[in-house]
């Protein structure tokens, strides 16, 4: 597992209060991890802070799974 993936999963576990083993790469934030739309906004803010990336709204809307987040961050982080 990549370092990005580890850090993303840690944020998701902390923020959503879910079991770490539920946070698979295919897990959907809303359907599998019980996030609501405001949780998504907060997760995106947390990712931006953790990785120093800017995630614009149109990109944020496409991030629905853990893997989506990892991929976006890997492609855009400095």
């Amino acid at each position, binding site marked *: 597992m990549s370092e990005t993936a580890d850090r993303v999963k840690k944020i998701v576990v902390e923020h959503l209060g879910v079991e770490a083993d539920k946070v698979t790469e295919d897990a959907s934030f809303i359907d599998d991890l019980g996030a*609501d739309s*405001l949780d998504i*906004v*907060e997760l995106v*803010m947390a990712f931006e802070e953790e990785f120093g990336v800017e995630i614009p709204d149109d990109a944020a809307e496409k991030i629905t799974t853990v893997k989506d987040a990892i991929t976006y961050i890997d492609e855009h982080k400095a």
Partner: protein
Amino acid sequence: MFDLSGMTALVTGASGGIGSAIARGLAAQGARLAVSGSNADKLEAFRATLDGDHVAVPANLSDASSVDGLVPAAVQALGGRLDILVNNAGVTRDNLAMRMKDEEWDTVIRVNLEAAFRLIRAAAKPMMKQRFGRVVSITSVVGQTGNPGQANYAASKAGLVGMSKALAQELASRNITVNCVAPGFIRSAMTDVLPDAQKSALLGRIPNGDLGTGEDIAAAIVYLASREAGYVTGQTLHVNGGMAMV
């Protein structure tokens, strides 16, 4: 009760009549303030009259980029925390609708409504992280009752009420409350110069028989900003001596 120690607050329009009373009220309960206003000299002079360690952060609320810079600047000046946002700044450009210029409409909506939205949007970020926030916007009795010559002002003030209800629902799960305070007629430089006949006609419509004061408004703000008011959200508290009961 209503102790605001350890809390920080941003107050817009803080050097004006009601705004300065609000700032004094919050500071008296222990909050640390960032006071804002458009006139930097007047603002700094006001800040200097406050006891305690408060900061002045000037901004021009008719300019979107100035508005968007205000919350980040205030948060930084306050050491990274923002507990209370009071949207108090407001302008009037009264005119009969038939004569109202586009610019008069636009200015009032931009300063009174759009700037408030931009400030709440920006403040929600630190407040969501903190899992705590208190937003109070100053609306007006006129937003509820209307007033001839104030189509723009009444629309902006009614707009604040509806907007606050929507935001209250969006942010409630994060322990952020969003409320309004609606003053009636408040003693100010504006009401002081009214002719006696007009003043007595005005007072005749107020069951209490007197104009309100800035302190009456400040007390309502202090309550809604307090930890104790955490279960009150999406509400408008009318402070008007009984002139309108809604």
